[in-house]
């Protein structure tokens, strides 16, 4: 018997997973090949029509970029917070949490106000005489990136922070006295120990990005169609089979993406340690 079944305290969680995750997943799998009878035509259509692979690729690309940029921005921010006095830490985390209380829809609209032709940035630039005509920022892919990064950044900061606050700073001191410069101690001890949490955050951000559709629809250009938008369209058309097939391809891409992120993390760790692995 697998060990997990002996831990009875896990049963409620397993039951929840079974009912709310596994069963729907199986249902989606079933819908994708059984609509109405056993068929692979939905997957064939996905693979044959260029649009779907392009959108899938764009979705993966956007999600990767968002995850990486979020990590790069969040890491030093989280480091700064961890280094602050306890009370300041609490305050800073609160500030970071505040935007999370607003819905993605509202935050996306807020970005329209900022990035628009007559928005805050253009008004400032034109008022300062730096530009004559408004710069087009809204309805472009960068606008999607900016908004998605802003929306998901708090999640990454908080996961990084939580990983970093678990690190025994005595280890960094130990590294120093054993001969490591501040940078070497960071590179060989602090970063490797905070990497796991950072990678977890990246995976969460990546997964959430893969499912985004409001933000790209509101802020993106015509090419910023993400896979979730196609799922939504097909659901409204009651085309469950194809919607399920797209969802499964999205899931598959997400799993591949996670594996890639994990592999990259392992390579990075090896590079940081200059490991003497045998």
């Amino acid at each position, binding site marked *: 018997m697998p060990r997990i079944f002996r831990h009875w305290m896990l049963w409620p969680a397993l039951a929840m997973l079974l009912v709310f995750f596994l069963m729907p997943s199986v249902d989606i799998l079933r819908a994708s090949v059984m609509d109405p009878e056993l068929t692979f035509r939905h997957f064939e259509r996905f693979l044959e029509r260029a649009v779907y692979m392009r959108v899938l690729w764009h979705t993966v690309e956007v999600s990767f970029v968002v995850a990486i940029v979020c990590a790069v921005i969040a890491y030093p921010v989280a480091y700064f917070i961890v280094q602050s006095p306890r009370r300041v830490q609490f305050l800073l985390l609160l500030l970071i949490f505040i935007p999370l209380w607003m819905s993605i829809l509202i935050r996306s609209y807020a970005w329209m106000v900022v990035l628009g032709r007559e928005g805050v940035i253009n008004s400032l630039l034109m008022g300062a005489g730096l530009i004559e005509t408004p710069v087009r920022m809204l309805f472009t892919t960068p606008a999607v990136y900016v908004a998605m990064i802003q929306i998901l950044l708090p999640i990454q900061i908080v996961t990084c922070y939580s990983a970093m606050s678990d690190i025994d700073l005595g280890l960094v*001191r*130990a*590294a120093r*006295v*054993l001969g*490591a410069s501040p940078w070497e101690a960071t590179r*060989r001890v602090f970063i490797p120990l905070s990497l796991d949490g950072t990678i977890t955050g990246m995976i969460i951000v990546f997964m959430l990005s893969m499912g985004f559709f409001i933000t790209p629809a509101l802020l993106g250009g015509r090419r910023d169609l993400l896979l979730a938008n196609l799922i939504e369209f097909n659901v409204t058309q009651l085309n469950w089979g194809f919607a399920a097939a797209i969802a499964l391809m999205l899931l598959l891409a997400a799993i591949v993406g996670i594996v890639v992120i994990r592999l990259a993390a392992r390579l990075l760790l090896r590079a940081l*340690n200059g*490991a003497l692995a045998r």
Partner: protein
Amino acid sequence: MPFTDASSGESVRFEGVGKSYGDVDALVDFDLAVNPGELVTLLGPSGSGKTTALNVLAGFTQATRGRVLIGDREVQGLPPEKRDVGMVFQSYSLFPHLNVFDNIAFPLKLRGVSRKEIAERVEDGLDMIQMGDLGQRMPAELSGGQKQRVAFARAVIFRPPVLLMDEPLAALDLKLRESMQAEIRAYHQRLGCTIVFVTHDQNEALALSDRIAVMGDGKLAQIDTPQAIYDAPQSRYVAEFIGKTNLLEATVAGSDLAIPALELTLPVADLPAHSAKRDGPITLSLRPERIFRVCQGDAEAYPNFEARVEDALFMGDMVQYRLRLPDAQTLIVTERRDTGGARPTRGATVQLGFLPRDLTPIPEPS
């Protein structure tokens, strides 16, 4: 074999070192000279400044005043990595993401030692700590004693002239702690490096040290060999901190030494030769194991007095008595269990004696 090469230890000197945190003085005008190759313990209760002194030496804390020297290098102002000292921490501080081998190899890697040499030296190190086949284990898979050995090997693998040890055995149980003490002494002899060892455990300090530096209130109270510290404490603080003792107030008047608590008057000449014999009050330390029961017949052979037994504490090989003197002061006496005669029971009155040379006068602070 590289690991057993005796690296030449270097001296360590604190000269008038002070460290303040705001209004709090953690270290006050601290002077200490450790000889090359010596094992010196900084002993004191928490808040005595011993950890601050160690941190100043390691470079984690910058002294507010004074000079710190390793050999003839002035190190104050240098970051920890430039001081070339090894260090073992109370919490071991093994890197949890590196296996035993990579933990031990860590300082060598930072020093640009070749792969081949690292492999050789770490293997030797593993052999020395008798963990030759555990190089691939992760720290989480080790017992407390094993972790401590790895931390030790990591601290000395680059043959630092000075090794700092910050309460390294505090987290271990008594038995393991005692065997680790023996190991540390053995390694110390083989390696020859200078060791500055911080502890709050007097038994550990007595067992390990070439010399003990007793600290209190951010100052050096006394530095001497364990035996001298024990036998001739130079202050009340040291006398009370090291081992158990009985402090007796006495008065010198001409050639007489009066000890009211014992209702005794002795000739001053009976005191240890080196003690001061000026007229006036004096505090005497009398170790519990230096007091013994006397039979009626011996009454004239030793100065003796009466006391009532309050309770007896069984300590294995010893019994510790708490007694009440006629003037209500408490007295502690320890006795080997194989001492002849029936053991006195609670409430019994016993006749006790001592040798006058075991009375150690405590110099009053000037």
